[in-house]
Structure formats: structure tokens, C-alpha cells
């Protein structure tokens, strides 16, 4: 059995709608609904005309990636490739081998194909995030001129170009030409090559720029860097989660508040500040 061009195109569209993190259909529907392999199984089944078969293929993949979290834009595996490249390819392979969709062999095959294409999704994710930089920087330039019309264009329209290049075309190619194309692409863009290494390194370093911009917005004078450095230490050296770190931060905020209130109250007679309403 072969995937037809039409089918491949439909799969490409789904992968665009369902990207991990920047999905064309947004977070709730795109990322956390269509992106999940179980749901992917349903849609692949509709496209290939065999819903029960595709869902059976999808189940072991879904189990594999069930508790996937992507904190701060670090994506261990982008499931769009698992759902809309992995499931179709596995479906074809299982059918080709004449296996039962619910059999253990089919499950094994599904999982190994999921692993094969898993990182392909990650490459798509980082590629998308990088290409979006262009739209954003054009956006900043326009915003400088108070041209607010660009907001929806930058945020919703232009990323579609990114998706077309980074997500749609590869998905169509890989599902249409089959598993061998996946490995071809992986050989053309090796992970230990300059391009991939640089792209992932940039992905690691760029948040530093964003956080520095944020830092600038809350830092007024050099001594404001002290609380910031303190926050860094409790997070990195002490390994506090963000919630625990914010509770530690809160006691300092409380002291600051009481100190400021004390400054005001002293001399004015009332020695007890009022925190009831906070």
C-alpha cells in the first residue's frame, strides 16, 4: 500500500495545524488536542480510510509520550511528526507486512517508527521558532512606527509561511515517498553537522536575549541585579521549582512591603501597618 499525494497533502496540513508549541490552530486545539498521537490516529485514520487501524497504531505511541511537558520552549519531542508522519508510515509498514494492527509486532513497529521520526519533529520545532524571528523583527520595526496593524499579521498570518516551509513540505515528502526519505533527510542534515548544531545552540542561547530584555524592564539601578542574582541561585544552585522559588521571593517582597510601610508610618503615630487587604 502507498500513500497518495492527496493523502500526503492532507497529512501535511494536519501537521501544520497540530505543531507542538506553535501550532497553526493554537495551543488548546492544535498543540494539546490534534498534536496528541491518539487524536492523530483518528485523523490519520480518516485520511487513510481506516480509523480503527490507525487508532490501534496510535495507541502505543500515545503511551510512549503521554506525560510530555515542554517547559520554557525546550521540546524533547515534537509530536506533530510522531502523529502525522510516524503513524501513517507505521500504518503502511504494518499493512505491508500483513500484521494485525493490534498485535505486539505492530506495536513494536509503531514505537520504533515513532522513535525514528521523533527528533524530526524537534528539528521542525526549532526551525519554526528560528524562522519566526524574521516576522517578529519586521514586527518590531513596524511597532516602532506605531503601526499596530501588524500585530495579527505577525502573530497569525506570517507564521503560516514558516509552517509551509518547515512543516508542510517535509511532511508531504516523507509520507509520500516513505520511510527512506526520512533517513535521506536525516543524512542530509546530520545532527553533528554545523547547521543542526548551530540551530540547536542558537535555540539554547536565544532565551538569554529575551530574559535580558525582561530583566531590563524590571531593573532600574545596578543594585536591582542583586535580587535577580539571588533568584538565579535559588533556582540553579538549590534546584527550587519556579513555584517554590516564588514562595521564597515572596518573603522578601513581604519584607520590602513592611519596610516601606514602616518608613511611612514612623513618626506618623500608628505603629501597626495594615496587611488585611492584601
Amino acid at each position, binding site marked *: 500500500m502507498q500513500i497518495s499525494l492527496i493523502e500526503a497533502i492532507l497529512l501535511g496540513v494536519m501537521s501544520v495545524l497540530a505543531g507542538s508549541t*506553535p501550532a497553526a490552530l*493554537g*495551543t488548546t486545539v492544535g498543540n*494539546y488536542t490534534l498534536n*496528541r498521537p*491518539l487524536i492523530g*490516529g*483518528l485523523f490519520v485514520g480518516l485520511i487513510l480510510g481506516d480509523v*480503527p487501524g490507525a*487508532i490501534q497504531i496510535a*495507541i502505543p505511541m500515545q*503511551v510512549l509520550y503521554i506525560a510530555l*511537558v*515542554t517547559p*520554557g*520552549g525546550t521540546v524533547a519531542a515534537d509530536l506533530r511528526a510522531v502523529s502525522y508522519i510516524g503513524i501513517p508510515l507505521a500504518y503502511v509498514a504494518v499493512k505491508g507486512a500483513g500484521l494485525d494492527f*493490534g498485535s505486539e509486532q505492530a506495536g513494536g513497529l509503531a514505537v520504533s517508527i515513532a522513535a525514528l521520526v521523533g*527528533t524530526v519533529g524537534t528539528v521542525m520545532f526549532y526551525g519554526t521558532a528560528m524562522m519566526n524571528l524574521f516576522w*517578529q523583527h519586521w514586527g*518590531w520595526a513596524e*511597532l516602532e512606527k*506605531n503601526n*499596530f496593524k501588524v500585530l*495579527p499579521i505577525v*502573530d*497569525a498570518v506570517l*507564521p503560516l509561511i514558516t509552517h509551509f516551509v518547515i512543516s508542510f513540505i517535509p511532511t508531504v515528502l516523507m509520507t509520500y515517498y516513505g520511510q527512506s526519505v526520512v533517513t535521506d533527510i*536525516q543524512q542530509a542534515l546530520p*545532527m553533528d553537522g554545523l547547521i*543542526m*548544531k548551530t540551530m540547536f545552540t*542558537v535555540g*539554547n542561547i*536565544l*532565551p*538569554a536575549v*529575551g*530574559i*535580558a*530584555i*525582561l*530583566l*531590563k524592564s*524590571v531593573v*532600574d539601578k545596578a543594585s536591582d541585579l542583586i*535580587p*535577580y542574582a539571588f*533568584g*538565579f541561585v535559588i*533556582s*540553579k*544552585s538549590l534546584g527550587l*521549582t*519556579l513555584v517554590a522559588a*516564588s514562595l521564597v*521571593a515572596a518573603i522578601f517582597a513581604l519584607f*520590602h*512591603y513592611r519596610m*516601606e510601610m514602616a518608613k511611612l508610618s514612623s513618626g506618623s503615630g500608628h505603629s501597626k501597618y495594615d496587611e488585611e487587604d*492584601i
Partner: protein
Amino acid sequence: MSSRVEKKVSKKALNASFWRWWYGNLTCFTHEHMQTFGYMWSLFQVIDDLYETTEEKGEKLRAYWPFFNTEPQIGCIVVGITAGLEEARANGDPNVDDEMINGIRAGLMGPLAGIGDSLIVGTYIPVLLAVALGLSEGGSVIGALFYIVVWNATSIYFQYTIFMRGYELGGTAVDIIVGDQATALRGAVVLLGQIIVGAINGAWVNITTPLEFKNAQGEVFLNLQGQLNGIMPGLLSIGFVLLCWWLMAKKNMKPLTVMLLMILIAFVGVLIGFFDPQLHY
């Protein structure tokens, strides 16, 4: 503060703001600004409603230019709160300024990301999927449909509710706390933001070097990252942020220039072996 002509965000603008955020929070994600554009698109509905002149609008929007990132679903509440704050600011509250707004955004984005990622993405979704997997055993479509309906209904309801609650909270908070108390609170919020930006730095920036020196037998006798950890864990991760901050704040470099410089550094670092993500397919 009592006899002012109250400005109020229209329900329509509020709804528009919600849906923009709901849809667009991550659609133009980059590693540099992450969810900033989604935030601006959403908040602009509110600003547009509250101010007259283009200049004013542009000026107010600037508070939302910096980096923003959180778990976007629970993060609805941040957007709602700032909508309420914008309203208060439009009504002349002097305690709401860019620094305070950024303090609040920074102070909330981190912990909410932690809660959202763990509770919604890491617990609620997997539990729903686990149930759905049971229902879909043998290839049945029931499980998938169950997940689609339950997840989207509950999630969207939750997001809408906390967005509106946040809006009310943001508005009333600055109304109740007035005068000196508000000034004190403002300082506390900014301090909280400063600390949490540091914590975010620790949690979300992870720059390390794999550089090692080996002897003739190929045994490592010197590991650079290990030595750097001896000074302080995460030295490169805070060092890069401080470098970028210094370039922008003290050398007046544009973010774009800094970003290009960072890409250059990444490239050169990869070339000389200082950086290496060490991934494989």
C-alpha cells in the same frame, strides 16, 4: 481618585482580547521573545479601547514589549490581570507604571508556568488521555472523541473564567490599595519580579559547554564545565543573560543586534567546539 470619569473596557474588547490570546499565545513563538507577540495582539484590544491617540496607544503597548512566557492556558489570568491594570492606569492611577506591570508579569509568569506545565500539561492531560486510551482499546473511536470533547470544553471554560476573574482582580486590587500602601506594594511587586526573573533564568536558560581535554589514551583529564560549576552552577546561563542585558542597558545596543551577535557566538562556539548540543536522531 473618587470623582474621576471612569473609563471602562468594553465587554466586546475584553472578549476579543481573550480570544486573541487563547488562539495566538504561541502561534508566533520564537526563543527570543516567546509569547510576546501573542500577548501584545491580545492586550492591544484593551489599550485600543481605553486610549484615543495613536501615540498614547503606542506608549502604553511598550509595557508589553519585553519577553513573556508562561503556560499559556493558566497564563490567561496574567493577561486578564494586566487588562484590569490597564483600565486602572487609564483612570489615572499613578502606581501602575511600566515597571510595575513588568514586575507583575514577571512575578506571575514563572510560578504559573510551573503550575500549568505540571498540573495541566503534566497531570490533567495525561490522566484524560489515560482514560481515553482505555476507551479506545481495540481501535474504537470513542476514546479519541471523549478526549477531544472533555479536554476542549473544560480547558476553554477554565481559561475564559480565569481571564475574566483576573481582569476584575487587576482592577479592584489597585482600587482597594491606595496611596502609600500602593506605593509600598508596587515596590514589593517589582522586587518579586526581579527575583523571579532570576529564577526563570535558572529554569529556562541552560547553556553549557562540553569542552574537554583528553590525554593520549583518550581519557578526559580536564572538563571545562566541571571547573565552571566550581565557581557557581549555571555560570554560563547567567553570564549570557547579564552580557545581553549589559549590551542593551549600558551599551544601548538594539535587541536585534544582540540577537545577531548571539547567533554569531553560537556559530563560532560550535566551530571551535565550545558549544555542542550533542543530539542525535
